[in-house]
């Protein structure tokens, strides 16, 4: 029982990370049809800059971590918005080229991070509480899992509130449904595009700082690893569906944890098999639109 609880909570924690990356990916794809390969780089740069600021101000304390998170969110949002504004905007409606540009960006940025911060992971200091465990139903669960889950739930709630309670949220939802109609009604969707990139980047930025807490290190390849799973999550959940991304994140991560434990470390395989199965049975994903 305690093993099951531990695996479940760890899976939820990992799922929280996946969701932070996948939510942005899914929104961006849903609204603009852009498959954003640079999303992992948004995460990595935020993790690095957040760590740099956090350790200079106050290493290994809550204040430092809070600052890291703030910096991470800000950096993610700014970098993502700048990417959209300066590069992707030039290629609207040319989806393959947009994906290619983000591929180039991700290759170049990972190389740049390696040049600046080296190829080896850098181990980070965390507040003491995060390195301890709490006993829940007999299972000793590392405390960082709770932080991850709480953050992801807050982000999910925040994005849902934003999408359903604000005017820009309305435009974004309408744009996901039918972009041409929104444009025809005289609304400038392009500002919504930049906004969606900024939101996705901010979520990924927070994800970057939290990933450095979860893994205990920052490295130039932090984003690339998470990005592949985030892609899988996005496709399983249904491209463009935020709720789908949330559900799929949890499913994929929990499945991965259980398979790793009970089926001799085959978590990655099981996830791939699950992706293939979902696509064959239901090509649009769990909550994707029918079109």
């Amino acid at each position, binding site marked *: 029982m305690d093993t099951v609880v531990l695996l479940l909570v760890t899976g939820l924690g990992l799922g929280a990370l996946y969701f932070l990356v996948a939510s942005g990916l899914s929104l961006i794809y849903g609204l603009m049809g852009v498959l954003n390969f640079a999303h992992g780089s948004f995460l990595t740069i935020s993790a690095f800059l957040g760590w740099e600021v956090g350790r200079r101000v106050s290493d290994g304390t809550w204040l430092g971590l809070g600052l890291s998170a703030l910096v991470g969110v800000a950096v993610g949002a700014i970098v993502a918005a700048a990417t959209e504004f300066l590069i992707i905007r030039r290629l609207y409606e040319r989806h393959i080229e947009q994906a290619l540009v983000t591929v180039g960006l991700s290759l170049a940025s990972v190389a740049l991070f390696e040049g600046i911060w080296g190829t080896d992971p850098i181990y980070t200091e965390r507040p003491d509480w995060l390195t301890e465990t709490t006993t829940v139903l007999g299972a000793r669960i590392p405390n960082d899992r709770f932080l991850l889950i709480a953050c992801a739930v807050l982000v999910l709630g925040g994005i849902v509130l934003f999408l359903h309670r604000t005017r820009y949220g309305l435009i974004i939802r309408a744009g996901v449904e039918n972009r041409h109609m929104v444009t025809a009604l005289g609304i400038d969707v392009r500002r919504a595009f930049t906004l969606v990139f900024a939101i996705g980047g901010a979520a990924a930025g927070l994800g970057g700082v939290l990933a450095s807490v979860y893994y205990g290190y920052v490295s130039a390849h932090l984003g690339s690893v998470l990005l592949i799973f985030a892609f899988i999550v996005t496709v399983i959940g249904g491209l463009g569906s935020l709720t789908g991304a949330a559900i799929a994140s949890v499913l994929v991560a929990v499945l991965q944890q259980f398979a790793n434990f009970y089926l001799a470390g085959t978590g990655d395989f099981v996830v*791939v098999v699950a*992706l293939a199965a979902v696509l064959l049975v239901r*090509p649009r994903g769990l909550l994707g639109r029918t079109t």
Partner: protein
Amino acid sequence: MTQDDLTGSTGATGTGAPARASRRRWLLVGGGLVAVAALAVLPLLAIDVPGVLPGPTYTPGTLQLLAFALLIAALALSYRMLFGLAGLLSFGHALFFAAGAYGLGMALDAFAPSDLPSGLAFTAAIGVTLVFGLVLALTVGALALRVTGISFAMVTLAFAQAGSVLIRRNPEQATGGDEGLALDITHVPEGLVGVVHTRNLYWMALGVLVLVYLVVLWVERSRAGHVAEAARENELRVRVIGVRPYTVRLLVFVVASVLAAVAGMGYLLLQSGAAPRIATADFTLTILVIVVLGGVGYRWGAIVGGIVYTLLDQRLTALAGSPAIEALPDVLRIPLSEPLFILGTLFVLVVLFLPGGIAGLPGRIRTGRRSHPAEPLETTDA
């Protein structure tokens, strides 16, 4: 498509092709033959291109690099058939290259203890690898092609990721894990082993490239190739005519994958081993970069892209370690000492400002048009 494709198709249907087009076609064929002949005699000459090649062309180091460039060009050519001809954006092409390299490596390992004659064992190993590549391509293709567009890209990525994980995990010590797989030379013909025989390996790489080119040309000119092209442009119309794009796409997918496996076998022999890097998604992305850099609309674009990329990668790595770069301040030194940063930036610039790639350059200069000659002037929603 491109001009030589147009002349090719009019020549093939034989409806009174104009004399100019037919002359142009013969010029192209002749030019190709001359280029292959020039490449073939390269190991016998001592051409030194400072800054581009590490040494004179007859030295093993330079030949090794050139042979590698030719194999990458062959791989890029097979990927161009998938991406450029059939419009299938696959993120799993590296899987088949790795299947060729690791498949042959493991087959040679398996045959090593047997006392079959070496020639027979080597041929059998190649045959086994080809069948393995074919079956793998059929399985992955049949599954992945049930979805299209971005989902297809994701499924292929997932399969490639599974392959990459499998290779790194090293089941029963078969793939060598992170260390890579060393070539077992028991049954490899003597002429293909060792530094002294690098020129044979170079000729083998050239042979692989020519073979891949001919197969790609054959598929593109065949009726299946035309259907694949038509399905890329307008799938609905192809369906209405009564043709199933699925079968044709699967054919193109399988042919491209087996060609990638052939290039992978060449890679194993050339490098005397296989590294797990060639199975990663990053490697597929590199091939994609090469194809786009060279020019998606052109067959020879993939070849030029492969050669330019490999040489650039090698030279930029050499440049990164040079004293001139070391002396620069950090702001300049760090970006310049990362070849992938320069290549990635170059790639972004090509996509943004040079949609035809390197191969599209002559056409752009000739016509003076700003857009890709094969692309209509697009209206964006901006």
